[in-house]
């Protein structure tokens, strides 16, 4: 799998994207201006390019001219939420666009969907014999399909995308169910139990004291 190229002149944003993608298991490279990006595009091979439109020197639109011949999928990052700008970006051959400010998980979902559409391998999440296709919402354990409820599925994807990281339980609840968890509610714990049972991950999904849950990294 080739790395993902992040082109953004704002170092904080570029690093934020890198952190998010790294956690999900993607390799990344950063270009902080148009010239560097053009050089990298010419010499390297990438599965996906995340491209900021407002760049000093060579603009994102101009970079599209370099990228188009290579056939590499592109997601525009833009602060311009205006319809005309979005249409222009898409018309120039971008596969998707993300309007700043964005949430890391939204970015991840968009990246996965574009990679899948481009047939570049991305999108499938694996751990301990469990294979998840987030776009098709399909789960297999050792090759056999497993039926999960929508909430269970979302919870599993959340854990898989943050493998090796302890997740706070209130944020987990918010991500999967939306809104705040009622005090004393056992909903999250109940779903974790069922996931452990259905997928045989009893010892892999760990309870972290005072924090939440953690899916171990496959060694």
């Amino acid at each position, binding site marked *: 799998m080739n790395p993902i190229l992040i082109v953004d*002149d*704002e170092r*904080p*944003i570029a*690093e*934020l994207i890198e*952190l*998010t993608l790294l956690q999900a298991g993607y390799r990344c490279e950063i270009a*902080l*201006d148009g010239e560097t990006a053009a050089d990298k595009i010419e010499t390297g091979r990438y599965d996906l390019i995340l491209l900021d439109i*407002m760049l*000093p020197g060579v603009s994102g639109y101009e970079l599209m001219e370099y990228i188009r011949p290579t056939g590499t999928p592109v997601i525009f990052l833009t*602060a*311009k*939420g*205006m319809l005309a700008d979005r249409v222009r970006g898409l018309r120039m051959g971008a596969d998707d666009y993300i309007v*700043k*400010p*964005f*949430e*890391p998980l939204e970015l991840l979902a968009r990246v996965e969907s574009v990679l899948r559409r481009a047939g570049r391998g991305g999108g499938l999440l694996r751990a301990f014999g469990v294979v998840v296709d987030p776009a098709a919402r399909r789960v297999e354990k050792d090759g056999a399909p497993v039926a999960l409820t929508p909430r269970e599925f979302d919870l599993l994807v959340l854990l898989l995308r*943050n493998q090796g*990281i*302890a*997740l*706070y339980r209130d*944020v*987990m609840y918010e*991500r999967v169910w939306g809104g705040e968890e009622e005090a004393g509610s056992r909903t999250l714990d109940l779903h974790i139990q069922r996931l452990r049972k259905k997928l045989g991950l009893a010892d892999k999904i760990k309870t*972290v004291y005072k*924090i939440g849950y953690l899916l171990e990294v496959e060694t």
Partner: protein
Amino acid sequence: MKLAAKLTLVILLLLALLLNLGAAWLIGSGFSAQLQAAAQQNVAVHRAECYQLQKAMIETPNLETQPPLVVLYGQQRTAQAGVGLAILSVERAFLYSGTGMENGWQPVLRALDAGEDGMTYAQEGAKVWQLFASPVQWQGRTLWLVSSCDVSSVFQLRNQQLAGFARLELIAFAGVALAVWAVSRRLTRPLKALEESARAIAAGSYDRRTGMTGADEVASLAASFDAMAEAVEQRANQLDLAVHQREDFVSAFTHELKTPMTSMLGYADLMRSAEVKPEVRQRAANYIYHETKRLESLSAKLMTFMALDPEHKTLELRPVALAALAERTARALPAEYPVRLCWEGFEAGRVLGDEDLLTSLLENLINNGMRAEPKDGRISITAHRKNGQVEITVRDRGRGIPQKELERITEPFYMVDKSRARAQNGSGFGLALCARIARLHGTRLEFESQPGEGTTVRFTLKEAGE
């Protein structure tokens, strides 16, 4: 109805009225003169015939009682004189009738009624006669003589003239109609062009002009129209420009706002959702802190910028001593400033202005010069008095600004080199602010720059009286 048609119709009506009146008068007066002349001649002929009849009555004592003789006489005279005659007895009995009319007795009796000096007309088909009747007497004997003179030719002539005139009139009508139509078409063609232009402009092509030249009223209307279109176009362009500038501003502002927000949101989300490594946590917190600072400074600058909108604010200009201005500006800059400031001409003199704003203006310009990293490590600020004005110049020998960027540098958020400006803590707002301050002082910033050579900024202030 079209103007051309209206014009044609009116002119034709007028023409018909005049022509017909004129022709009626002309032909009518000619005709009556001829008829009169004929009548005079015919009266003379009639008198002569009366005399002839009297002579015959003298020669033939019983003429009136011998009809065959009367008929003989009548036939003789008719053949000789070439006029139609009728001879009647006192009792109005026809003794001879040779009037040339087919049905002559009635007109003859009417002529008798008209009396001795009367003239009557008789008509049969196209023929017209003048009839004269007189009693011819000799020693108590009386005969009525009626002469009928053919005047058809006079009437014929009149009818010919009328027919000729009608033909002439028809031709004149056709000619005039054609001419008027053509002329009015010619006159209204520029109006049509004008109308088309107006339509085009109404449809949005503000650059359309009639382009008509000439000295007549339509041309001057076209000229006024073009002038109006020019004004409309300028206004439309102004509005376009204003909209464009506002869009640019909003777009740049959105970018400046959303960029720090993206970082803040993203890093905060990262930190709150999972246990991250201490170094990542430290870096994320750092980013959040700096981006928040950046947002705060942006909002402060924006507030100042908005408050200084020249359209809604006028300054109360007060005398400001140049020396005080220099001192305050120097104090506003950090103590350990990387470049040396060379003040010149600031020892004496006062200008009209707002001290706070002028300080801020100089401070911004000096900071810009410092960011250009002057080769000689200094910035010279010069005040030069002339003609009641003070010209202030800030000059650096730094990086310079490319020519094509010069006109845009006072636009809000515009940065010649964005990443360098960011690194130097620039917001892209400083010069926009400076330009506003200058405008509020009734002056404008003039830039001169040469890449690699340095930049000079110049503005003039009014000198305050002592």
